[in-house]
């Protein structure tokens, strides 16, 4: 009985924590994912180069650099939102966004905003493609009929963007030259 109560409480806590994940709004009332990161060990120029590389190399298929200065990078991007059933699912749509990166000595910040959702539909060949070219702002208030589905879209988008943010921070903290050198090492089995 105690175990059952514990499990129910655990599930309830997980649900509550999942519900708390939601976008903040910026000065214009738009959803924003905003992060300020302390980075004392990496120089300003290196951070800028790594941010540029993240957009143009690591995420080249889904991001396009719009402009760059000596302390900022602006880009546009899209990310696919999945409907997941345990281990299998399918893409349900994509979210386009504007990405801003700004750097100072010892810290940087980045944010994603202007998010538009485009639903996918299955085409005649069984592939999921954009149903329309015109996106819907994520901030819209859905009608009663679509409220549940819209909540799922918001949750999936937040999870994806959170993952994107984590990968961006990891990319900026990683020295890719050293990493490449380590990968090139070979192991000889002739002597031991």
């Amino acid at each position, binding site marked *: 009985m105690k175990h059952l109560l514990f499990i129910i409480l655990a599930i309830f806590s997980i649900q509550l924590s999942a519900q708390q994940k939601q976008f903040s709004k910026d000065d214009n009332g738009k959803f924003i994912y905003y992060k300020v990161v302390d980075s004392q060990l990496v120089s300003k120029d290196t951070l800028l180069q790594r941010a540029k590389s993240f957009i143009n190399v690591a995420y080249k298929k889904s991001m396009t650099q719009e402009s760059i200065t000596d302390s900022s990078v602006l880009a546009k991007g899209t990310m696919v939102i999945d409907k997941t059933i345990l*281990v299998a*699912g399918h893409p349900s749509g994509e979210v386009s966004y504007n990405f801003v990166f700004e750097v100072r000595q010892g810290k940087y910040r980045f944010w994603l905003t202007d998010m538009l959702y485009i639903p996918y539909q299955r085409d005649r060949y069984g592939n999921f493609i954009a149903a329309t*070219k*015109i996106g819907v702002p994520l901030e819209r208030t859905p009608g009663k*009929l*679509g409220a549940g589905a819209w909540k799922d879209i918001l949750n999936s988008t937040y999870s994806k963007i959170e993952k994107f943010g984590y990968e961006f921070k990891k990319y900026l903290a990683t020295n890719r030259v050293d990493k490449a050198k380590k990968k090139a090492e070979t192991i000889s089995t002739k002597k031991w």
Partner: protein
Amino acid sequence: MKKLLTAIFAMASTTCALAQETTTSPLEISGSVDTYFKYDFAKNPLNGKTSFVTDHNSVSLGMIDIALKKKTGKASFVGELSFGPRGQTQSIPDAAAGGSSFNIQNLYVNYEFTDEFSMTAGYMGTFVGYEVISPVGNFNYSTSYLFTNGPFQNAGIKATYKFSDKVSLMAGLFNDWNVYSASRGVSAIGGQLMVAPVEGWTAYINALSGAGYGGYGTIIDLTTSYQITEKFKLGLNAANYDIKDSSVQGSYVGAALYPQYAVADAVTIGLRGEYFKAKAYGPNAATSTTAVTLTANIKSGGLTFIPEVRLDHNSDKPFFKEGGAAAPNGGQFSLAAVYAF
């Protein structure tokens, strides 16, 4: 033909060996379930002259459709099966087998040699026409005359080259229409030019020539849709099919217009206006039908309710009145529920 196919496969396998696998996607599972109620105004199920939605005054089944897709590196496959009247007895390959089996909607493998060039081989939904078998792919629940009389599916091998996001070209060799294995060899050649002149507007110009319905023939088809505003979309399908032997029934010409307007987030109203002419064959004269279908799509999550009213007119009286007398007009109301997952 054999030499050409051998050359294509040899080229494909060589490039496969050279290419490197880069990414693996999880297994995608998707599909749909649909059911409907139809009431024919003359209480005669024979008034339905197009595919599916056959039963009168009955809560009837469409089909359950299950699709699997997996991509590993540059290679992918799609396997899609359907069960139920729409996917079994009313689908052409299975009807020939007595309607006791399932229908394969898609079963093909694809290889992306580059970001621009890919090849696909297997059994696929046809590239011709606006409407498809799956109710998820159509706005209207009943189907057009152009859909019913055109190909449903094609088995074959095709190559697609994407010049840009705005232009691509497909060319391929195919079996005769709607068969899992060719009865007259790989005997049709087909192509598709896709152009997207402005944001939201896509047009497909299709051609398929060779073994098809009624013998050897050529179909030319234009399928286009334009999302003009966030709420208004306009679609058009026009096609001409000529069978080489003019004494055989099956040649046609027609056009259908599909305006759709979103009146609310979850509600879209759409009209299908169609003109269809079955061409003369042998001593038989041509006959023309006009049809107007008013449809609403009401969406809630994966579920779509589709109420629909359809009126057909043909002055040669192919329809029936309640007592069984020939009539120039047919009409029906239907309410369908389609769940996509």
